[in-house]
């Protein structure tokens, strides 16, 4: 316990987040083992882990780097479709589905990161809302291109067409991997909750280590004051691009996890609304707050499913909740009252145990 107290604040906070994720995983596994999970909940587990990964990775761009991105689902779809193709091609070569999964994930992450570089280099010339609109445009372009992409596999290798399935010219026994607007079907379902959990840990590990590194501090410096950061010799483009590309790569891996959980996926699933959903997770969880993002991603993925009995009123209620949360959390009077209450509680607790070191009391007051 002493070790825990002496740790510096970020390490402690990161450890709490890791512990939270691990405990949540164990609880879900335990519930699954004793049959405490409904089948709809079981089906939700992998999507939840996917959205947690997406929320963490988008937080890197929106919270840590301070850029508004409206095309995160675009990177997710790049990853999803790449992984489907990669895993199909590896089927003959690699026996173990576990290895195939990780290879598929890695390739998907790489492909999405490449897309991130491709879109990032031009995008990083822009600022603020202009950057947002370009990421939005990018997401739409990806969706449109995938809607017009046919990809087939036979003994001669990959066939690509932009017009229709017949133009692929597949030989007998060839398999269509991506079928235009119908997307990919007959996907090997090799992802599961445990793998999703591993991916969440990996994403957390990457993001935490990036944020607490020299580069991470540079990224945050650029966010807080671009001109000041530039004047001390930080290359703003480089660090903004770094955050953007890492985030894209992680989103691609999450997309791979998502795709390999279903029999079929369609490009239109990864549209503007999906990007917005991920953004909502990040904003409701608190920008730059990874733990908050994890919690809000989980709750907001489960909640709409739980509200299914409401039928058409479901999304209406979701919308109202969204607006109310934003209004309440940004209400200055309410926030002031809340802060005062918190301070009162903290002060009373400080009176109770006087042996606390002054440094910690100050820290508690600031929190």
């Amino acid at each position: 316990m002493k070790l825990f107290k002496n740790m510096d604040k970020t390490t402690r906070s990161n450890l709490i987040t890791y512990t939270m994720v691990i405990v949540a995983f164990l609880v879900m596994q335990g519930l699954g083992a004793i049959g405490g999970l409904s089948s709809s909940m079981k089906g939700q587990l992998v999507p939840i882990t996917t959205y947690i990964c997406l929320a963490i990775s988008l937080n890197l761009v929106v919270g840590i780097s301070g850029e508004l991105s409206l095309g995160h689902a675009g990177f997710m779809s790049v990853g999803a479709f790449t992984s489907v193709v990669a895993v199909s091609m590896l089927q003959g070569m690699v026996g173990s589905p576990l290895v195939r999964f990780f290879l598929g994930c890695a390739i998907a992450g790489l492909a999405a990161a490449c897309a991130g570089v491709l879109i990032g280099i031009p995008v990083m010339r822009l600022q603020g809302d202009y950057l947002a609109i370009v990421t939005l445009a990018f997401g739409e372009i990806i969706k449109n291109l995938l809607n017009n992409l046919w990809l087939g596999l036979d003994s001669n290798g990959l066939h690509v067409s932009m017009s229709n399935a017949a133009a692929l010219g597949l030989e007998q026994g060839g398999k269509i991997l991506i079928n235009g607007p119908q997307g990919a079907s007959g996907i090997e379902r090799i992802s599961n909750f445990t793998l999703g959990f591993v991916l969440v840990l990996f994403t957390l590990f990457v993001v935490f280590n990036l944020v607490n590194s020299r580069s991470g501090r540079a990224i945050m410096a650029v966010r807080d004051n671009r001109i000041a950061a530039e004047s001390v010799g930080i290359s703003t483009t480089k660090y903004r691009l770094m955050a953007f590309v890492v985030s894209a790569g992680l989103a691609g891996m999450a997309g791979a996890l998502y795709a390999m959980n279903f029999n079929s996926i369609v490009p239109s699933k990864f549209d503007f609304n999906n990007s917005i959903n991920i953004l909502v997770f990040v904003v409701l969880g608190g920008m730059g707050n990874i733990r908050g993002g994890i919690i809000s991603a989980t709750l907001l993925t489960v909640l709409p499913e739980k509200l299914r009995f409401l039928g058409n009123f479901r999304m209406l209620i979701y919308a109202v909740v969204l607006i109310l949360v934003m209004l309440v959390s940004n209400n200055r009077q309410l926030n002031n009252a809340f802060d005062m209450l918190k301070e009162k509680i903290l002060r009373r607790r400080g009176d109770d145990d006087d042996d606390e070191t002054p440094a910690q009391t100050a820290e508690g007051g600031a929190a």
Partner: protein
Amino acid sequence: MGFLTNLINGISLGSVYAIIALGYTMVYGIAKMLNFAHGDVIMVGGYICFCCMQYLGLPPVLGVLLAVVGCTCLGVVIERLAYKPLREAPSLAVLITAIGMSYFLQNSALLIWKSDPKVFPSVISLPNISLFNGQLVISPISIITVLACVVVMVCLTLFTQRTKMGKAMRACSEDKAAAQLMGIDVNATISMVFAIGSGLAAIAGVLLCSAYPVLMPTTGSMPGIKAFTAAVFGGIGSIPGAALGGILLGVIEIFARAYIGTQLADAIVFAVLIVVLLVRPAGLLGKEMHEKV
């Protein structure tokens, strides 16, 4: 003649985008927020006009008028309830609220009018105009759309340049605090901008539904995104920019559909946007702001 037909269709579609983009750009100019609910106000305008004509049997002119009034009120109410309390909040919070509002409008429409597409009755009962022995056919709705766009543009320019309220609007978009010190009621001015933008959205909704007569709760979202793109394309915050951006975008979209492929048209529109922003980072007519230290 195919080229000319496409050009006319493009300008007509672009005029609709331009009218919607005006709403985006004015709101952005004064409140510095991306009002994602704007696209759904278009849809509401379409539905109000549809109901007036279909169920109440009112003449089209009255339907359009009621749609404008309805949407204007809706815009003001939305601003008062959802955006005004967030005036001091970070811009992302406002953005999420706007998205929430967009979901709210879409799902309310889904509950009220159900999801089945409604066929929009024609507002104008004029015959098609045939030119060059019938090689070039112009539908009256495209002429009306272009005319409406021109009228709206002229009125809006006169309004912002010549009237006191317009001057107040420009002052607020330059510097809200200074405007307040000069005795301008900033809140009333912002409400006014929302009212004008939403009223224009209703007109755009009717024009859009007349040209593409299918009305669904999601009818407004894609034109909304496109018009938003158009506003950025022309330089967000600039009124002539919105008009130019809208018309260019409409023409590009129709040409891409005709000569490259229906499926890829949207991709091309967005790709052109990205290229334009690379060359001119503040849009075609936008003012480039240099940060001062």
